[in-house]
């Protein structure tokens, strides 16, 4: 093959190699984005889920605590009943905040 034709062929190969390099670079960038973007999104989602969950737990525990304190108060009032005094009105105290 003549020298000039060889050089032309080599030049086209060099271009192809260059384009292949750019293609590889593009793939690396895309894969990196596919790794980073979802990681960030999932991280953000997790934070919001955890936050919502914590709020829910707090509300539930709070409600449980209120109920328990009401039960406890009821029990304490019932303990005030003296067998000799028959003071049932001191024992049976209605808690109006409880909605039936």
């Amino acid at each position, binding site marked *: 093959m003549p020298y000039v034709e060889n050089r032309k062929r080599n030049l086209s190969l060099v271009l192809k190699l260059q384009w292949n390099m750019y*293609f590889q670079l593009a793939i690396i960038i895309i894969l990196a984005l596919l790794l980073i973007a979802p990681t960030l999104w999932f991280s953000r989602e997790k934070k919001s889920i955890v936050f919502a*969950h914590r709020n829910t737990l707090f509300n539930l525990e709070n409600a449980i605590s209120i*109920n328990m304190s009401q039960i406890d108060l009821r029990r304490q009032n019932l303990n005030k009943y003296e067998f000799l005094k028959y003071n049932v009105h001191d024992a049976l105290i209605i808690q109006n905040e409880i909605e039936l």
Partner: protein
Amino acid sequence: MIRFLLLILVLFNCTSFYSQDKVKIDSINKIYVQGLNIPQDSIVALFQKNLNDAETIAYELGMADAYSQLSLVYGYQGKYEESAKNAINGIKIYEKLNKLDRVADYYAEMGYTMKYRDLEKGLYYMQKGKAIAEENDFENELKDIYNNYGVLKEMNHELDSALIFYNKGLKIKLEINDTIGIPYSWSNMAGVYGLQENFLKAREYFNKSLQQRLVWADSLGIAENYTQLGEVFMAEKKWNEAIPLMHKSLPISLNKQYQNLTQYNYKMLSDIFKKLNNADSALYYFEKYSTVKDSVHSLKVQQNISALNIEYETEKKQNEILQQRAQLAEKDLQVRRKNTLIFGSLGLAFVLAFLGYLFYNQQKLKNRQLQKEGELKAALAQIETQNKLQEQRLRISRDLHDNIGAQLTFIISSIDNLKFGFMDISKKLGDKLTNISNFTSQTIYELRDTIWAMNKENITFEDLQARIANFIEHAKNASEETEFSFHIDQEVDKNHLFTSIEGMNIYRIIQEAVNNALKYAEAKAITVYISDDEDEYHISIEDNGKGFDKNLIEMGNGLNNMKKRAGEINGKLIVKSNLQKGTHIRLVFPINS
């Protein structure tokens, strides 16, 4: 006489011969070297013989001319040392003979032959010859000197100056009709026009020169013209037009052993083929050139050939390397593409796996959270339900108590009103009303106990113990003469939980028993003792009162109530009483009732 005549005859003959030799020598010396079609060696031999002949007869002018011709021939052959040696020998004789025209010509010739080797020196000698010729107005010499001097000027890049001298030379040649010299002038002028890039005029003059030389069969000149015409085409980069002209010049220069022109032709051809990227031919002609040049100049040519060879080989190798590189690059490209595909796929698979993992983790977290929330919600629902149920029960109980209690209280109140409103009611009626009132009061108390027990799920042993102790303390305060004791066996589980009904009933039984002991038995000592065995509780209330006969005394409401209460907690009440010894009431009931 005869001797004299013989002598004269010999002298005459000698003279004749001597004259004939001189003529012969002169005629040979006058031969136009450029036009000789015999081998150069033969020409050298001819003039060498001529020189020898001239030496033989001591014909100095002939010797000088012979030296001149030899110098010229050697110059054409590239044998410059020989040429210079002969020239100097000739000049010495000419100077001796005061042949200034020959001297001028010699110097000019010497300078001309030195033009390639040492232009500066060449110019010097030429100027020397020119000066002598101009001084003495040697037109015949001047025509060639001017021409040759123009050549040197041209070589020295003084083109306008060269043209001037060529024109000077041409003028003389035209005047004397120097048919051989005129073409030289035309050729030289054409060369200058070529250098000035006036190629049309250059070709015109070269052709004029060629035509003239063809007429006079000036082989060397013809060869030179062909070469020069080729050079014009080369200057115009018309390589293909130049090649045939060089090929026309070559055989002539080879035949004439005109080494300088031959090597020049080869060089030009080598250059042309190099321009045409024909390395093979370029190398071929360069080798030819160097072969010729080596014999003329120094070994530097070998290096150039080697360099050209190397250049050729290098170009060949470079070509091979480029081919190999191209193949390697192609393979490399294929491998890279495969690698790109593989790594890209692996990368994508990894990314998908990673996304899957992230998603799985998120779901796992959500599930965990949901589970926890579910548990808490269930717990909340349970406790809310329990709370609401308890609250509802309490409210209902309270309402119940309020309603029924109020009614019962009304009944009591009404009965009391009756009792005190009607002063004349009988004792029996009064007692009956009192019983009803007491029963109603008792009912209210039981209602309250029941309501309390409904709402209180259980009572600890500790709490019960405290209440019983409290009751006993009250009883003590109410009856200071009576000694009370309350014991609980150590084995009894103090953490046991009684239901409220159990606790209530146990307390009421103890209360009733103690009240009975105080009211009816007139006891001085009352003991309450709680113990247990494996699966039963034993509560004993013992007093040292007056006791009673069970067969004679009917069980009153108190004892019946106690039995009823014992029955409610799946227990039994055992009453033992001995007159004047006291009463022992034992309540037995199962632990997990």
